[in-house]
């Protein structure tokens, strides 16, 4: 009689093992962050801390949504940097963070700025997850992408963008 009990235990464990290993945990994609002074943010974070840290923008343009007046997107332009936000329930969130030129020497936390070479990017971030049709290197985050635009081998633009 004891045999049956033991047999069942073994059967159970091999079942459990099969259930267990079926569940290989996929590697969790990490978001890419941008930091300025003490603020470290990425897309979908609240925009206020970064905007306060950056001070008054040189230009502020509103993209009125086709219909709903209050849910506008706003572009804040700074020297060499552009921040785009969207509004939800009255709170502004980060939509895009873009390093547009090398006039103000903006760098990503990993030390890459506009004007650096393709090799430096690969060294800092590894191979891109994909390269788009016009040669832009795309690194995937959880719900965003980090994009490096190239002319030839030099970076012309770095963009943290929310997945639409």
């Amino acid at each position: 009689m004891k045999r049956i009990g033991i047999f069942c235990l073994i059967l159970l464990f091999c079942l459990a093992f099969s259930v267990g290993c079926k569940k290989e945990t996929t590697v969790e994609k990490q978001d890419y962050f941008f930091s300025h002074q003490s603020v470290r943010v990425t897309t979908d974070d609240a925009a206020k801390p970064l905007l306060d840290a950056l001070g008054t923008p040189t230009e502020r343009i509103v993209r009125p949504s086709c219909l709903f007046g209050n849910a506008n997107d706003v572009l804040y332009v700074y020297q060499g940097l552009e921040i785009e936000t969207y509004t939800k329930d009255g709170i502004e969130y980060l939509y895009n963070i873009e390093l547009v030129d090398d006039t103000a020497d903006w760098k990503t936390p990993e030390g890459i700025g506009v004007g650096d070479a393709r090799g430096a990017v690969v060294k800092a971030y590894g191979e891109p997850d994909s390269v788009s049709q016009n040669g832009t290197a795309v690194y995937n985050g959880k719900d965003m992408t980090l994009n490096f635009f190239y002319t030839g081998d030099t970076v012309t633009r770095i963009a943290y963008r929310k997945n639409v």
Partner: protein
Amino acid sequence: MRFTSLAFLAFAALTVLLYYLFPKAKRWWVLLVADYVFYFFAGKEFLPFILFTTLVTYSFARWMQALTDRESRYLEEHRDSLSKEERKAVRSKYKTHRRWVLVSGAILGFGMLAILKYTGFIVSIFRSSGIPNLILPLGISFYTFQSMGYLIDVSRGKVAAERNFFKTALFVSFFPQLVQGPISRFADLEPQLIEGHPFDSFNLRAGLLRAAYGYFKKMVVADTAMIAVQTLAARSDELTGGYVVLLILLYSVVIYGDFTGGIDIALGIAEMLGIHPAENFNRPFSSRSVKEYWNRWHITMGSWFTDYVFYPLSVSIPMQKLSKWSRAHLGQALGKRIPVYLATIFTWFLTGLWHGAGWNFIVWGLLNCLLLLVSQELKPLWSLWQTKFPKLCASTPWHLWQATRTFLLMGLIRSLDVYRNVPKTFRLWGTIFSTFNWGEIFSGGWLRLGLGIADYAVLAGGILIIFLVSQLGKAETPLRERTAKKPVLTVFLLGAFVCVILIFGTYGIGYNAGDFIYRTF
């Protein structure tokens, strides 16, 4: 396929229609197919698990039945040649053999439930990262308990094992009960499932009324209150003090509407098929003591744990030895309490664990147990109090006070379900007395929880209707059956329910409260 989805309504209607179209003998086939269609849509990756449990239940039950048959045949043949002692020896040999078969079956049945439900929890105790979260098949806690109960009944010889595999499968997977019970006994449910019921418009009307009432409680009352509960839970760090009491009250409304509503839908559909599973509630909030509450709330679960865990444990051999030892050494009073209290604590530990893989559920179970034991100990005090003030104790205000006290106590412990973090819950319970922000709540705080005045009005109306129905339901034959006798009134009531649910229900875009709380078990 959630109960509150239109797809389920169509599915249920089609099942009832087909059921009565099929010849009587074949009607249980319709149910079986319906069960597996429902389960396929609910989650096709769960199918292997329910099939596994059904296979284990069927084969081990047949195995034990074979042993019992062989035993009775053997005793029959040697009726006269065996003495009482020998007969007893033969019986105990078979009994232990059956016991081992039962234990093996239970290992497989409960083992699968334990692995799927608790591995993540157990692993999380030892390390905080890489915790596997295994898929939890729909209703696994319910159908496992139902089938294991059946196995125990067969091993006790209380029930003859079902020879037909498909009929066993039907018993394990009867679709209305899959999502959140009730946990039926084989002896009560199986005959009703197998025998084809004649079409009876009374059953149809009574079932429709019950299901409609269930949807009303779920979608108009529970889901509306759930919005506020979700806000209170999400912002529990800032919404303390009076808000915790608000949460306790609202969550009691939510759990009542959600659970009794879901059961009414399930039993309503079963009733339309002429099947009457066991009742799961009996006006729970009118109970005046925690003991009475647990005889009125989730009755089938309570009786399952009592019949298959508490009693066997308290009369098991080791427990009897302990009882003898403790009574000898610690005196009669303490001695007789030890075994029973140990059995109670263990039973409630299992009840808590069954509700969910988390410390908050276990603590919830143990707190319930504590309340029961304390009220057991205070019994002499209460009887003294009653002899002193017989008039007072018989008066309704006193009964009202007892009912309110029980309601609040159970609500308090139940809030563990919402906060899901034991230390935090205790801290929040503390803030009820330390932070006094009732002024802020009544001057507008209560309107910032996602519900406007109109929603609270709907909630109040809903609770009033539930209260009236339960008062009217006190009479012998349930209110539903009395109403179902008058077809025109039934059609009118059904129409009214449909309108009220469509307009005042909380469903659709923005409200994802459609899932039943117990569905995640």
